[in-house]
Each structure stands twice: as C-alpha cells, then as structure tokens.
C-alpha cells in the first residue's frame, strides 16, 4: 500500500468511515502515523463528513437511501403503515378491554372500539388496493402507450428555412413519446445530456446523466406536452471527465394528429 494506491482506492475515506478490514486498517495506520499529507486529508474528510451529518440532522425529512426503485408511490406506503399502526393499537385495546371489563358501560365502549377497528381494516384494504392499482399504472403507462420515433444525425442541424427530413407525428391522446437516436461511432462519453430547442430558440425540455444502451443508441422518453407543431432541434452533449461537448444534433418537424 503506497501513496498512489492510497489515493487511487480512496483509502483515507474508507478509513474515515471504518470500512477497511483489520489487516488494511493496521497497514494504513502504520503509514498514517508518520504521513502529514494523509493526516491532513483524513482531518478534511472527517470535517466534511461531520458537517454533512449536521446538515442532514437539520433537514425536515431524512434523505432516502433505500435501493432505487422506480414508481413506488411513497405516500400510499406511509398511509398504509399509519393505518396498520392505528389498527394494531385499537385491536390491542379491544382485546385488553375484553379481559378486564364486566359491567354494561364498559361493554358498550368495547363494541364501539370493535366497530372502529373494522372501519380501519376496511380503509386499510381499500388503500392497499389503491396502491396496487397505482403501482401497475406507473409501471405500464410510460412505456406501453408511448410511440417511438427514430431520429437521424444531422450534420448541420439548425432551425433555419430548410424543412427537416424527419417528421414526428404525435396524437393528442399520447402522454409520452420515445425518441431513438443513433450515436456517432467515435463517441467515448460516460453519459449524455439532451436539450430540445424549438423554432424560436427556446429550450423546451432537457435531461442529463443519460447512459446509452448496449447497442450504442440513446433512447429518450419525454412528455408529449412539450412538443407543439413546428421545427425542433435535439442537441446531444457527451460528458467526459466532467466536461461536456457536442456529440450530435437531430432536427425534426413535429405535427399533431387529431
């Protein structure tokens, strides 16, 4: 483990959060104890981490670090959990009353609690069903009903007087469209960002951090509502080492179907 290895593998950061195994930790500490540069870096990392933690503790809601999963309606989950918790409390209360109460006044209260518990239960199942339906909708809607258009790379794409050769006809009922682009062969970019510009030069839509498919093409899903009839240029910029450069331009003429 030399200085180059330490830097390349972010050993200081791993040590700062206690993620080195015992052998690596011992080896690194033997180096650290006599290395002002690593000591400075560790102090800076600790400082950054502590400040980040302080910022996080001041947030109203904690950052969600669960595994990324698309389309889960969080509001339904929270509601289901809250309803389950309330139903559990009421059910426990009902059972407790049944063991200790004898007179009619308490029995009336018991009946009322039973009624409330079954009401909560019906609400829980209704919410659960609604959540299941919403999840299916989110999974299905953007892909199944979105038309796909293939755009060709245009060497000198512009919004001038020439009519673009590619036409994109969008039905009013469609919510999303998919634009499929072929990327230049010599591209060596880690990711891409896309910007859609209309005839007036206004950016109507953009996205970034798009990773190409294994086939070497790019597929962009965008809401149909951003496109009206007219000429558009889609500009793709590739990112390499933190810098963006133009990878390609694609012009098309959008028309709307009734």
């Amino acid at each position, binding site marked *: *483990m*030399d200085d180059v290895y330490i*830097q*390349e*593998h*972010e050993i200081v*950061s*791993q040590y700062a*959060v*206690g*993620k080195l195994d015992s052998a690596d930790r*011992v*080896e*690194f*500490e*033997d*180096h*650290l*104890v*006599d*290395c*002002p540069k690593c*000591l400075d*870096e*560790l*102090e*800076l*990392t*600790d*400082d*950054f*981490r*502590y*400040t*980040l*933690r*302080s*910022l*996080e503790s001041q947030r109203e809601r904690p*950052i969600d*670090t669960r*595994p*990324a999963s698309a389309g889960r309606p969080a509001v339904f989950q929270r509601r289901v959990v809250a309803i389950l918790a309330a139903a559990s409390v009421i059910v426990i209360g009902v059972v407790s009353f049944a063991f200790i109460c004898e007179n009619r006044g308490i029995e009336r209260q018991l009946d009322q609690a039973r009624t409330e518990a079954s009401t909560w239960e019906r609400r829980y199942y209704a919410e659960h069903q609604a959540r299941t339906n919403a999840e299916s909708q989110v999974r299905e809607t953007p892909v199944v009903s979105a038309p796909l258009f293939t755009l060709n790379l245009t060497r000198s794409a512009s919004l001038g007087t020439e009519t673009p050769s590619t036409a994109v006809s969008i039905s009013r009922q469609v919510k999303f469209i998919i634009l499929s682009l072929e990327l230049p062969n010599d591209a060596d970019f*880690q990711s891409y960002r896309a910007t859609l510009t209309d005839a007036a030069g206004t950016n109507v839509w953009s996205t*970034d*951090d798009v*990773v190409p498919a294994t086939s070497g093409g790019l597929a962009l899903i965008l809401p149909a509502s951003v496109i009206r009839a007219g000429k558009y240029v889609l500009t793709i910029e590739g*990112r390499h080492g*933190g810098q963006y450069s133009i990878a390609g331009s694609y012009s098309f003429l959008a028309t709307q179907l009734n």
Partner: protein
Amino acid sequence: MSRNANELESAATLVSRIVSGEAAAEAELVDRYKRGVTVILMRAAGQRSTAEDLLQDTFRLTLEKIRRGDLREPERLSGFICNIARNLATAHFRRASRQEPLEAQTPLSADSDDDPLQRLLAAEKAAIVRRVLGELPSSRDRDVLYRFYLADQDKEQICLQLGLSSLHFNRVLFRARERYKELYGKLLREQHDGVR
C-alpha cells in the same frame, strides 16, 4: 506500505539517538508522531480524555522499550508505535468493560459547540458543504456521498445499487473533498486577511 529511503533512514537515526541517551531525540520522536497517534487513539477510544491518557502511556512505553533495545528493526518505528498504541487501547477497554459500562462515544468532531466562534465556523462550513453538494453534476453523485458518509453503506453496495463503476465512485469522493478543501482554504485565507 512502501516508504522512501530518507524516511526510513531518519527513523533509524532517531532510534539510534534515543538509544544513545539524547533527550532532544526523545522530544523529537514525540513531536513527530503525536498527531498521528492521537488520531489512531481517538478512533480506538472514542473519547478525547481517554485518548489523551493513552497517548501519554504510548510514548512513555515506546521510549522505555527503545531505550531497552526492544525495537530490533528501527526502520519499522511507525508500526512499533502504532502497535503499542493499539495494544494499550485494547487493554484499556478490557479493563473498563469488566469494571463498569462503557460511556457513550462522543461525536466525531472535536469542535466544541459552546464557543460562538466555533458555531460561526460551523455555519460557514455548512454553507461550503451545501455549495459543494450543489455543484455536483447529478443527484446520483449527491446520493453517493449521503449513502457512503451518512448511511454507512459499503462502496460495493452503493456501486451496485446506483449502477456506478468503482472509478466513478472514487472520483465523486475525490472531487467533493478537493472542492471542500479549496473552498475551506479560501475561507481561512479570507478570515486571516480580515484579521490582518
């Protein structure tokens, strides 16, 4: 862990001077290794007061052993000192666990929150961290920092869940730290110039 020839020679020379009874060499050893041993003991002990006690014991024992000739490979002085420090920390916690429950660990930062100047510095550091987070090219990079530094997730776990390469992961940590260093250094210079 490779070290350059000058460093090894200077460690061996330091040991040789201590063995020959040179008091200045002992002070030099403490001065050279104090910061690093403190860092190691703070992580092992979790509390500043315990770490400071163990620090004193570490250097006392180190010098006794060197004078006695127990350090047979002087070029391994760093590892020798670290082993003593770690062993003392382990022994301390064994004794402490037999006597009474361990106290809760203090937060990582050694800064006191009671000092108004420290609170001001903390607020300025928070602004710097917010800026660093805001300058990251994507929300996924911010996610990397939160998961690694706050959520205690492993690098491999984060890379798998976010679809990152190991290189990208390291780059995110490196850039965030370097940018924080740059902005914090600028803050300190501005404060220093303001004082003058």
